[in-house]
């Protein structure tokens, strides 16, 4: 009986140690920290603005969890690779400027859904993403840079962004 209980204790502790070992040694070890506000200087150059946008798209914006880099079968959201060209085309069809269209897509994403996709995106100016005006403009510039013409600047494009936020019913 005592031998049986001892074996049992070895199995209990042994299994726990195996799971712990896998957790410590086989899984990647990184922490997930809350994102920090990215400071964007007024008059930032277009290249720097695009670079900041890229950081947000792949970081705190978490855009890449839905938007693949290249088109894939069964993708949840439009691919990034030619999104700038798609923005210009869709904007023309809807009689809007590319700037208005891209801001609307970010702060009022349910307003217009690209054919073939579902209404699944949450607005980026509100919780939980909560991007600042500058960060939204940087993301929009990054999107434009994929096959489109980058026309946005900070703080020059803030009024167009504010207009779209107001149209969405936000502050």
């Amino acid at each position: 009986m005592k031998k049986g209980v001892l074996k049992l204790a070895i199995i209990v502790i042994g299994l726990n140690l195996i799971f712990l070992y896998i957790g410590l040694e086989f899984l990647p070890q990184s922490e997930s920290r809350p994102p920090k506000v990215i400071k964007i200087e007024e008059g930032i150059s277009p290249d720097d603005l695009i670079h900041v946008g890229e950081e947000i798209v792949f970081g705190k914006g978490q855009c890449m969890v839905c938007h693949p880099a290249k088109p894939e079968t069964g993708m949840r959201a439009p691919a990034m690779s030619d999104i700038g060209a798609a923005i210009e085309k869709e904007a023309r069809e809807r009689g809007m400027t590319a700037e208005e269209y891209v801001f609307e897509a970010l702060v009022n994403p349910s307003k217009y859904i690209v054919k073939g996709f579902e209404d699944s995106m949450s607005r980026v100016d509100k919780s939980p993403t909560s991007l600042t005006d500058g960060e939204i403009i940087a993301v929009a510039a990054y999107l434009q840079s994929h096959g489109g013409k980058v026309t946005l600047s900070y703080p020059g494009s803030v009024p167009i962004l504010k207009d779209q936020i107001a149209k969405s019913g936000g502050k």
Partner: protein
Amino acid sequence: MAEAGVKKGILKGILKFTAILGAGFIILAVLKNMLAAPSEDGYRFFPLIGSRDWIWIVAQLHLNFAAFVLGVPIFAVAMEFMGWRKNDDRLDRIAYDFTKLFTLAYSVTAVMGSIFLVSLPLLYPKFIDYMMKILGPTWWLYLIVMYGEVFVCYLYFYSWNKLRDEKWQRTATDTGAFLSGVNWQKRMSRKGLHIALGVLLNILGATLLLITSSWVGFMTTPAGVNADGELVSRWAAIHTHMWLPLSIHRFVANIVFGAGIAAAYAAFRFITAKTDEERAYFDWMGYTSAIISIGASLLLPGVGYLLGVEIYSFNEQMGIQLMGGFFAWLWVMQSIMIGAILFFINYYLWISLQKMPGGERYYKYVKFIFISLVIGYVVWLIPHDVALSLEEARRTGTYHPALGKLGVMAAKNTAVILSYLATFLSFAIFRMSNKEATVSWAAKGNKARMLIIVGSVVGVLAIGIYSYYVSAAVRVKVLSPIQFGIFFFALVALYVLDSFMYKGARIIGEPRWGKMPERSQYALIAITVTFTWLMGMLGYMRAGARQYWHVYGIMKNTSPDAYLPTHGYASIIVTIVTLLFLLLISFVFWSIMKLEQVLGERKGS
């Protein structure tokens, strides 16, 4: 907890519970005045290990015990009911043994709950104040229902012998009168009343589950508040996206977990048994508990899927982050553990064939089931590896170039379903292994069996492959449910077919309960240990889905702990919780054995 009169037992239980709860409230009031005021943003800091880890350990321990005491009564009363209908005292005994387990575990659950009750408002006062503002009335309802639960629990336990005495007396003294009808009615009413108490206990338990799930649901998928977090609709704050699917998921998981612990208890008693009779009983109890646990776990992928759908519909980002972002590798860990559980239970069933006369006829099939399980396991282990950094995304693309295809849900759903199907086959083989069908259509029945198995495997595989070529919406909303549908259809069809085919079958020999090698019991223990670790890890993932929010998108966590630790760190905490829980539950096992010893000695003297 010695055997006592019904009134005395209930009074003792209520007093004990009140004392534990009261002590909690008093300690809370005293410490609130003694400790320094919380920081400006509403936090106090627990010494040495920090507030987050302390709450993590206490909450998970409380949750484990709560899962146990809410899960076991579900199948205890089901067993009691079956025992009553079949007039089977063995089923009544197992139901009583299950009841002993959860009644004793109530005290430990209450102690853990009280520690949690003291800790949370002291360490996170601002957050608790906010939760009370939004869902305060549900907390008071929780206390009332909990008292009801404790009352009915002790009533159910202590009235067990009272409400079956008559049958024993009757069957022993006057079989004729027993069958005459008058006493039968009386017996039904007494046992029936006891079973009704068990049902009431489960209704109260389910209510507690719904209340606590509403808190978690609000924290993770909040509703009923405006952008500033002000209450707009309390009902909407309760009835969130997560509320019902989480409650259903927990309900099923509690059965799985509770039965797993009961199986471990039986295995422990088997290993420490002194007589063949005891060994036979606990072998049967272990088998019954393990089958309940694994049987209920068949529902988990389906109800987990429902929960996932609701999380996605609340916030797509949260869903994807949970399934494939930071937590991607913890799903691999989950796969390792569920795969291991399936291997343990299959191993147990394969060994169990030894005690079935005629079981050797089925040894040849074991290798095929084993190979299917291994293939399913490999696919399941491949991570849905979303790039975690800009550099990684630049290097590999959004998903891993080679393994990405097998890491997505299309492949995983298919692998999981086929692994579970293989496990069900092991069970079906075990069940029928000591029987020989005597119906005239037995040969056709066997062909139909094969057709169901092959057809369902081909169907699940074909849909799995087709899933790659459709949109995510079609895959999630149409094809995955069809795969689960095929799986459940196969289960039901096989079960029904076997029931008819083996009706009046020739019994080659009765199962030789107790004639099992000791290693079979270690497989049962291993299942329980793995389940407990898994519960701890999934609990962390569910809470971690909120990332750096107390209430997602509404109330930010601004404490120094507002980050997700490394997977290694999380594994350390989960291991500590698992070992502590198993230590406490073995204390419960030991107490029952001690109680039985004392009662045995009293009867003897």
